[in-house]
């Protein structure tokens, strides 16, 4: 780390949250002279790259200035009163839990903006596209940075409208229905969540997450905590998504444009699991204690359900859409995250947070790759792609095929890549759950989750087999463009980080662990 004064750190954090909003407003205005570029479309796409780049730079400097020795402490905190009537404070801060997610968001949005610059989305004017992308980024970053329950709700809601329009305007087939499903499901969830947040805030007398976490639910009766966890949990579980509340996700992913899918899987889903760790665990631990076994049960059902759905889609003749398949695989992967959280142990929660980030990197990469395949072939239908023997990407576009195989094995949790540690730690946590949770139940969950990893490996290998391998292409087939330079630029960071996190998990775990210990202990430590 480097020593950066506290006021600069405060500014950097506020900048990462506010700059995309300002950038979004600026994107709608006509470009000033000197920045007009070749065409208005090019100028506004470049504007998107500039703003997200600046935000990424700020997030990276923030990481450098972050005191890694005190990662359990909130740093770069700002605390300004905003709406005294509701006791809403603009309370921002990062600790070891939120910092990785903050950087992940900034990185993925930047890569998406970069990708769109070279490959503008098919649809109406990119002006609105860039503006919506930036609002989306601001909302997501705010979700990870705010420390006030009502502000968290505001940030949580902020991503809905941009994502709705991204899907409904720039999406593929069936986009209207998918967009509606996405926004109505999530809104219903988040309204219920609001009721839970209000219940907690009103009964405890404060909406400040830090104060509530320090209290550790001491002022709240167990029955109230159970209701609160149920209400808040439903909202977060829709977003995560937890089986059986996941049904909006496959449609949304299938219809969304590539960039939308990447952000949806890479960042938006994390808002749900982050909420579990940041709000539910420390603020209502007793309620969580009661409901944890059920959460874990739903989580492992999700793991099995996701992998079985993927297996069914990957079969020959199933007309499975690759994007849909990866969406279902997200249900499975997020099941591991939820399982880790439900153990309520430091090991499990650390694993969950690790799996969170790993899923963002790997699934982001996979959606990029599948989007590229869809662009080249005009379809993501596995049967149409594979034909009788396979799409033979290794032969026709070796780099693309190689990257896809890399993404697939990373996703199935090959040791040495990022996907491994999170899932292993989550299962490890479930093997020895927190005191008071039924160990036999959790042992069963561990076993079922283990079966899930097998199924995951099975379908991902089937996908690799059918997409990357196959008979040598006939001479008359049109040549397939391999990975372009801009695609390399957008994907390499994700691949590199996947390897880095796999080989050196301590980078992440060292950040999250102290914060998780503190969170679970509450005011006791």
């Amino acid at each position, binding site marked *: 780390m480097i020593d950066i004064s506290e006021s600069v750190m405060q500014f950097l954090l506020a900048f990462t949250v506010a700059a995309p909003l300002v950038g979004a407003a600026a994107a709608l205005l006509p470009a000033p002279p000197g920045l007009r570029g070749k065409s208005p479309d090019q100028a506004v796409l470049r504007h998107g790259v500039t703003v997200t780049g600046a935000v990424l730079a700020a997030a990276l400097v923030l990481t450098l200035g972050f005191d890694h020795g005190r990662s359990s402490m909130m740093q770069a905190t700002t605390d300004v009163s905003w709406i005294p009537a*509701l006791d809403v404070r603009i309370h921002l801060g990062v600790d070891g839990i939120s910092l990785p997610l903050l950087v992940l968001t900034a990185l993925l949005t930047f890569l998406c903006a970069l990708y769109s610059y070279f490959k503008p989305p098919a649809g109406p004017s990119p002006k609105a596209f860039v503006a919506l992308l930036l609002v989306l980024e601001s909302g997501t970053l705010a979700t990870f940075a705010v420390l006030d329950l009502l502000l968290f709700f505001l940030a949580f809601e902020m991503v809905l*409208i941009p994502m709705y329009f991204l899907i409904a*305007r720039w999406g593929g087939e069936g986009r209207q229905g998918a967009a509606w499903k996405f926004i*109505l499901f999530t*809104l219903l969830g988040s*309204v219920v969540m609001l*009721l839970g947040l209000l219940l907690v805030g009103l009964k405890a007398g404060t909406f400040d997450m830090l104060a509530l976490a320090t209290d550790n639910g001491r002022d709240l009766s167990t029955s109230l905590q159970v209701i609160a966890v149920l209400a808040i949990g439903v909202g977060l579980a829709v977003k995560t998504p937890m089986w059986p509340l996941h049904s909006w996700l496959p449609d949304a992913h299938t219809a969304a444009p590539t960039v939308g899918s990447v952000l949806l899987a890479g960042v938006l889903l994390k808002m749900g699991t982050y909420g579990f760790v940041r709000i539910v665990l420390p603020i209502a631990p007793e309620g969580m204690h009661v409901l944890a076994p059920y959460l874990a049960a739903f989580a492992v059902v999700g793991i099995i359900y996701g992998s079985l759905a993927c297996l069914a889609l990957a079969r020959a003749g199933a007309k499975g859409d690759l994007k849909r398949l990866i969406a279902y695989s997200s249900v499975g992967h997020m099941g591991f995250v939820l399982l880790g959280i439900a153990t309520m142990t430091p090991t499990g929660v650390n694993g969950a947070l690790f799996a969170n980030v790993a899923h963002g990197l790997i699934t982001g990469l996979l959606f990029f790759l599948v989007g590229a395949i869809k662009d080249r072939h005009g379809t993501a239908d596995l049967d149409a792609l594979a034909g009788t023997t396979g799409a033979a990407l290794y032969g026709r576009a070796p780099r693309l095929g190689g990257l896809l195989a890399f993404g697939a094995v990373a996703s199935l949790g090959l040791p040495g890549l990022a996907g491994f540690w999170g899932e292993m730690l989550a299962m490890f946590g479930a093997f020895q759950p927190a005191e008071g949770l039924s160990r036999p139940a959790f042992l069963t969950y561990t076993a079922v989750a283990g079966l899930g990893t097998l199924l995951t490996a099975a379908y991902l290998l089937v996908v690799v087999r059918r997409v990357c391998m196959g008979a040598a292409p006939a001479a008359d087939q049109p040549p397939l463009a391999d990975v372009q330079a801009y695609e390399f630029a957008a994907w390499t960071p994700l691949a590199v980080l996947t390897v880095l996190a796999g080989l050196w998990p301590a980078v992440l775990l060292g950040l999250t662990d102290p914060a998780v210990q503190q969170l679970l202990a509450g005011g006791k430590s």
Partner: protein
Amino acid sequence: MTAAAVTAAPTALAAAPANGDLVQAVDWVAIAPPTIAAVVALAVLVADLFLPQARKALLAWAATAGLAAALLALVPLRAGDRSTFCLTGDPGACSYTADHFTLAIQLLVLGGALLTALLSVTDTRRELPAGEFWFLLLSSAAGAALLPASRDLATLVVALEVASLPAFALVGLRRGDRMSGEAALKFFLSSVTATAVTLLGVSFVYASTGTLHLTEIAQQLDDVPAQLGTLAKAGVALTLVGFAFKTAAAPFHFWVPDTYVGAPLPVAAYLSVVGKAVGFTGLVLVTVVAFPSYADVWGPALAVLAALTMTVGNVGALRQVSTRARSAVRLLAWSSVGQAGYLLVPIAAAAYSSDDQIGATVAYALMYAVVNLGAFAVAALVARTHPANRIADYRGLYAARPVTALAMGFFLLCLAGLPPGVIGLFAKVVVFSAAVDAGLGWLAVVMGVNVVIALYYYLRWTAVLFRSPEGAPGEAPARHRAPVPVTAAIALTAVAGVLLSGYPQWVLRFAATALF
């Protein structure tokens, strides 16, 4: 007759039971806001007789200036500690009180009337008779401004009628329009029935308590003789019915869609905001101030009414077909019924909790007034080029008028309560928190489901704004110059909405303080 009644009624009432000194000191500054509106109303009516046809436009500006002056008259009262027309024997019982609640509602009502006036300026040049229109609008505004200040049942009923009677005429003002006449008749008949029921209720309450002052009724109701208990209860219930009608609470909402569609557009805007404010203000005054001891009667009733109203309104709005003629106003009418349901929630919550919940209603109403008038202003603008005013006509508005379309999107999302409509979101949060605080969990859940339903139709409309226009791309639609007053109304409401979104405290502070 109406304008004169505004000032005369309280004087007569308050003076009658005084013993000893019969002369009251009148605090003219305190009663300035409704008085200015009433005086200007008369002045406009008289001036209309002497002005030549060519100079009738002056009336519009005189009326607008009068409303602005009435708004300015609120400034010296901001301490919120004035009251007048008090009983000479008991200075605690006053007929007119300018506390913070009064001031907030007067701000809403007079501001709403001012925006309505801006929207009407161009209409009065052509299709509406200028003199009558301005007189009626200002009289109604005067009544609506008097209502929140009244603290005895007689003044309350008089104010309610002063606010409503001109409104019937306003609805039917479009000469030779069959729909306008039918709408006015529907509005009139159902409203008169409701008023009669209210009066019956008031007489029952007077019979059982022997006083008309709200604060004294609150004390007397505690020890009503046993044989009069039923009478008092019936009185309370009947009084509420009349006000529930004005708020357009279900099942008293059936007149709303037809009346709004039949009325001139600015009048529909006026009814949706000021008319509604009149209803819920009266409801607040009688429930919270006069009948607190009967909270177990009106609390559950209002909670059920709120749930019913928001559901009926939102489902009604959901069923609107966007290609039907006047579907835009029809949708706004149904959605205003739904919004009335949210407004009722904190009043119902006040029955269950000792904390002051009424502020949540006031805060929500202020937010709703700003954004709903904004939406109506945009509708008035679009109606100039598309007289059918279908929702489908809003397609491609962004291409034709980007700023107007952004403003409309903002208003609709505020009504839906989603960012970027931050003020709409927090106003809903305040209402939710009132319900949760009072332990009305089921009502909060019903409201949550309704918010989702409402989002569907608001967002559907918002999405239409940004669709590419029909017809050949690149073909520039013929641009009509927007009239200045309408543009000013849109700009005012949009700026107010954006400012409030940046600093919601300006509106939400009412939710945190005791208003009475």
